[in-house]
């Protein structure tokens, strides 16, 4: 292809234009986040006078983080978020894989109807049932309980999980299963075998489930304000401490860090999960 060499060196006019747009947009995407993190380490005056400067020896301070340590319950909120997200992930993956296995590998009366019944939940937001769901949670004694949130998120996450996983399970060749059955494998053995083969799909479902659960404000706010997750806790903390800029910037940074670390470490899985496995 003509021009390949130039493109690779990044000097052809078209390539330069592309890079200019991409660099420009990357800057727009990351600058606000970077601005918050940088200023969270600065004294109050420099935050206002030189917001764009990196912290120096004179302007550096951890005052905001000390306020958080004293007044915020960030440790507890983080723990709540980890438990809720972890519990929901576990249930969505396990129960979703089981249901997907049944729907993908067996044909029985009503299997198509059941598949459709579950698929409806992909498009209809669970929030619309809040009025009645709160009553159900109350009846079961699950308000202000992390377990209540886990069940709600599991119900909301299952439809997409079953949809993605059953499409994947259908691709596993029948011969593999038949061979295993000849060797005496029961349903659970076959299930375990197919799940092992579907690890990329499970990773994708894990990402798709995790992001909205971790970041959700609605359900912690309406169903479990007594056990705040990191998202709800930060929301309330930030609203309360509006005038303490050091604390606000530190709180934002602390609230961002778990997700940013996960994102950087599992970048490939994030991208692949959201691209539906199309990117090798």
């Amino acid at each position: 292809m003509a021009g390949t060499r130039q493109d690779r060196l990044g000097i052809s006019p078209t390539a330069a234009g592309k890079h200019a747009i991409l660099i420009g947009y990357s800057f727009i995407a990351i600058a606000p986040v970077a601005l918050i993190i940088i200023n969270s380490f600065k004294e109050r005056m420099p935050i206002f006078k030189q917001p764009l400067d990196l912290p120096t020896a004179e302007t550096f301070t951890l005052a905001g983080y000390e306020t958080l340590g004293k007044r915020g319950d960030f440790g507890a909120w983080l723990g709540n978020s980890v438990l809720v997200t972890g519990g929901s992930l576990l249930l969505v993956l396990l129960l979703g894989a089981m249901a997907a296995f049944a729907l993908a590998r067996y044909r029985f009366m009503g299997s198509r109807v059941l598949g459709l019944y579950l698929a409806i939940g992909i498009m209809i937001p669970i929030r619309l049932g809040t009025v009645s769901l709160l009553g159900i949670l109350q009846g079961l004694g699950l308000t202000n309980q992390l377990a209540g949130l886990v069940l709600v998120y599991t119900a909301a996450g299952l439809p997409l999980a079953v949809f993605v996983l059953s499409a994947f399970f259908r691709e596993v060749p029948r011969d593999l299963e038949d061979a295993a059955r000849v060797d005496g494998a029961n349903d659970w053995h076959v299930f375990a075998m197919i799940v092992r083969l579907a690890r990329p799909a499970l990773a994708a479902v894990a990402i798709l489930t995790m992001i909205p659960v971790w970041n959700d404000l609605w359900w912690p706010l309406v169903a479990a304000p007594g056990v705040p997750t990191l998202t709800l806790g930060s929301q309330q903390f930030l609203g309360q401490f509006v005038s303490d800029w050091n604390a606000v910037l530190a709180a934002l940074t602390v609230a961002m860090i778990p997700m940013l670390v996960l994102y950087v470490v599992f970048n490939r899985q994030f991208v692949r999960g959201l691209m539906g496995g199309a990117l090798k």
Partner: protein
Amino acid sequence: MAAPASAPRTRRRIPWSVVGFLAPALVIYTVFMVLPLLDSLRRSLFTASGELAGLDNYVTLLTDPDWAPRFWGAFANNIVFFAIHMLVQNPVGLLLAVLLTTRVLRGRTVYRTLIFAPTVLSVVIIGFIWKLILSPLWGVMEGAMEAVGLGDFYLPWLGLQGPALIVVSLMSVWQFVGIPMLLFSAALLSIPDEIIEAARTDGAGAWRIFRSIQLPLILPTVGIVAILTFVGNFNAFDLVYTVQGGLAGPEFSTDLFGTYFFRTFFGFQLQLGDPVMGATVAGMMFLIILFGVCLYLFGAQRRLQRVDP
């Protein structure tokens, strides 16, 4: 879509193990999602004291002077919110995807990682970040605009009735542009290189290739992105609640169905919570989302039939 190689075994009675595999997921999904949705719809048809009200609550919501202005206000705002996503977020996502899927491009992963980063963060965090940046107290945005000679155009937008909704919409666009970018990238990568190469050999330029080859081939993804945007937008809540508060100020100018539903059901400040009207607002949101989904499914169905008779 089942491949012939993996055709399920012949139809038979439901084996017990299948029940065991399906039951836990079906029970949780039914109890915590389907039943609440149906029960909420049912409650919207009854009065607070439990008498059948038919569609009275809906009539109240859509016509009563106490309810209708806020409802139609949220409706109009939600349409603007959605329109801005369709006109800004999705075209920008598509442009970025086209650039990122160019065959020879250094730094592809770095760009993608940076551009997608805001998407994984909580809407609450994003809302606060932008609130601080746009605040006249901090003055970062004002300073940045002065630096490029646009200082005179700076206004405290979030406090102004006209621009607040647009600015809040753009915050959301900024955060979520990564999703259409990734979905379009996946679709663009699935187009065989040979087709593009052949067109290029025939002398087609980048725009021509995009218009005549790439765009038609990724139309199904355009539909998926549109319906995902629609459902997400008509159920959005977190951003407005965080940035503008439960009253979606100034003067309800950023009120969306999500915040309207929240205030109606739980009450806010002087307003008392009202479960029946809350269920009615949720019922309207359900109908609107259902309408969008049906429109999408109908469109997708027709296109499939045209392409594959």
